[in-house]
């Protein structure tokens, strides 16, 4: 019987990661490491998502809402809402997006490196005022 880690643990770790990420972003000079900070942040979100997916019992889905976009049909929700999976799906999407973002960002950083011969974000401050 190994002890079951409760949700709080995961959340704390995630929050810690998030903080680290923000700290990195704010402190690092090198654009790439800033990007790494961003990745940290994204992954902290992922941890949350997966943890929630594991622990949280999905809300009973309900009848049509008034608002511009209510659920069309409760049944549909039950079937396609895929509550047990949605967290993981979400996480997967996030990973993909993170990758795409990183790719674009790196490309841009490369461009900067070409044109300026450096990737120090503090140097990149011609536009201001």
């Amino acid at each position, binding site marked *: 019987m190994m002890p079951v880690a409760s949700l709080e643990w995961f959340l704390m770790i995630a929050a810690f990661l998030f903080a680290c990420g923000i700290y990195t972003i704010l402190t690092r000079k090198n654009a790439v490491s800033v990007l790494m900070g961003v990745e940290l942040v994204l992954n902290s979100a992922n941890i949350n998502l997966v943890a929630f997916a594991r622990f949280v019992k999905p809300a009973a889905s309900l009848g049509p809402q008034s608002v511009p976009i209510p659920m069309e049909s409760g049944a549909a929700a039950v079937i396609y809402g895929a509550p047990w999976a949605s967290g993981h799906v979400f996480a997967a999407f996030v990973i993909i997006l993170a990758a795409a973002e990183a790719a674009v960002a790196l490309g841009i950083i490369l461009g900067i490196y070409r044109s300026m011969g450096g990737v120090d974000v*503090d140097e990149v*401050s011609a536009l*201001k*005022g």
Partner: protein
Amino acid sequence: MSEDHGHGQGHGHEAPAHGHGHDDHGHGGGEHRTHFSPAGFTPGLAVMLLGIVAGGWCFSAGRSGHLALGPASIDLNGLFDAPWASLVILCLPLVAAFVQIFFGRKLPRNGDWVSTIAVGAGLALSLMMLGRIIGIYDWQFERVHEMEWISLFSRTFPGAQDVVTFRVPMGILIDNVTVIMLVVVTLVSTLVHIYSIGYMADDPRYSRFFAYLSIFTFSMLGLVLCNNVFALYMFWELVGLSSYLLIGFWFEKKSAADAQKKAFLVNRVGDIGMFLGILTFFLMTGELTYKGIFGSVANGAFGAQMGLLTAAGVLLFMGAVGKSAQFPLHIWLPDAMEGPTPVSALIHAATMVAAGVYLVTRMYPVFTPNALIVIAWFGGFTAIFAATIALCANDIKKVLAYSTVSQLGYMIMGLGAGAYTNGFFHLWTHAFFKACLFLGSGSVIHAVVTQDMREMGGLRRKMPITFWTMLLSTLAIAGVPFTSGFTSKDGILGDLLFAAHEHPALWPVVIFAFAGAGLTAFYMFRLIFMTFTGEPRAKEKFEHAHESPWVMAAPLVILGSLAILSDKGGWFQELVGKPESAAAAAIAHAEAMKPGAKPHAEKAPGHEGDAGPSHAKAPDVGSGYVGSLPVAHAGANPYHPPHSEELHHAHSAAMVLSILVAGLGIGLSFFTYQKKLIDPAKIAAAAAPVHRLLLNKYWIDEFFHETLVKPALSISRACSRFDLKVVDGFVNLWGKATEVWSWIAGTFDQKVVDGAVNGTADVVMSAGAALSRFQTGRLKTYLAWAVAGLVILTGGFHLVTHWAQIVEHLTRK
């Protein structure tokens, strides 16, 4: 000279045209020069005689009530029963003025005849009217022709019935006083017109001068014809305007320009008071016509507020103080002598300045006893005050000016003392002899090119007509028996004495009055002696001197003779009777209002006046001290009251006294300036301070300049600086504030860019500057701000909104 467009007038003295003698040729006086040649004698005299004859004919026609033109005969009652006659009199000068202004220079003789004929026709009609009223011989005669001018409704609630709340009628009121004033105005005006033909002959703005004269005549006639205070005020201002224009007729002279401005402004001061008075009457009575005001005042429109009634009267009187140059607003009149002499004669001696007296006469019924005492004091003090200044004046016109002020003082004082008839009568007589004196002085100045009496002397031989006419007038003004001046002035003094019996407050005024009379006699004869007798003191000027042409002399003759004759016949006293006092009735009302006042116990005398035309008892003013003209049996002029013994005593006493002081004055000046027994210089030296005081006219002008003019100017400058610096310069103020702001924003170096339109803009600019400091261009700063903002906003906001819960949460633990 011809290129010197009358700038000559700038130099030395008023009438430069005469500066270069009377060579009949020379410069552009134009064709209207002929009558200067001795040949001018015949037409001049002819015109005069013709005029006199015509006038007499009109007058007698009026007496008879029928104007016989061959077979046809016009009933002259039409003069009054329809407004046309008065309107013709009123409008002819106006038309003339327009003709002059627009076509004057194109007309032959520059159109002087237009104005002259216009006013002459007015004179003819006025004479007819005079004749008519004498024919009718009813002291209560009166006709009113009225029309709506402005009438505004208002409503008690939206859409309700309209009620007229504000109504200004325009109308003509013709009664004896009006007609007499009409004659005064038109007569003097006509003569001055004729006189000016000669006097202004060489002036480049000849036609303009006549235009102005006509404008003045129009305004003055309107002033005397209108039937309500609003219109009165309007014409009051208009005569002010024409006086302004005429005083500054030679505006190239700075002194003239100053004088005209001064005249207008000083008058405005009085006018403000008058305006407030009118407003007060309007507020209380809701009426603007004379009759309306009198009626509702008599019916207790003022309730118990007799103080207010007095105040309103005094405010109204302020107008007279300004216009009739009473102390302390007399200062403009002497300066007004900058104007051409005919103007001084017409406006500043005979007619306009008398408007104040006319005002008091007109509004007489609304003055409460206290108001009348104030008026009397003003008048009396002015009379003596001006006379003293005149003692030391050496400018011939200044002497006359101050004597005018003093004489106006007499009239005002008389009215204030209840000498209604005689006060007004003095206006009538004074108009002629003072006009004569001014025109005479004009012709003297015309002859010897100076106004300084010390450079004259012995002119009698050179200009006899001028001398004799002026002498007659001087006798009149000095109050020598058998002259018109004597009758009127003595009348005033008598009534004053009598009034003083009843009202001790008037005793000082009595003293002023008699002393003034003596002084008048003195300085007037000083004028005569210094000018006409003795040895000429300025030879070459004397050589130059000559009698004026007939066109100028004729008016002198007429006026001079009027100075003797204008009081004869006693018709005046028969026609002008004191109206019953509305103020008395009002006071009676107030008394009745007082708690415990028995309704008919002691009602003010003349209270029955309300009960129809029967003037059983004297319509005395208030406490009835003015016994002079009390009782009116039904319809008859209340000039000869039954119980007038003490009045007669007063009059005889006054007569003796006034003859004495007059004689004294004349004698003194005779010994001083004719016989040279007394050396004025010595006296002056002996009483040096007094002399200086008088020479400097008591420093009144300086006083006003220091206390009013200067402060006003500096205040105005202060205001505009304030406007620039503070109100607008809110900019700079904010500019300072922005320094602080910038500092808070951590920007010392950010200079606030200029071009801000106002304070806000400046703040905004520097705020922008501050903000742009945040925009460092460094990504990390941005992110830092984002994070910080997030934390601060979220946390702070949570704290703010959920403070209660948090506290409660903490305390629970």
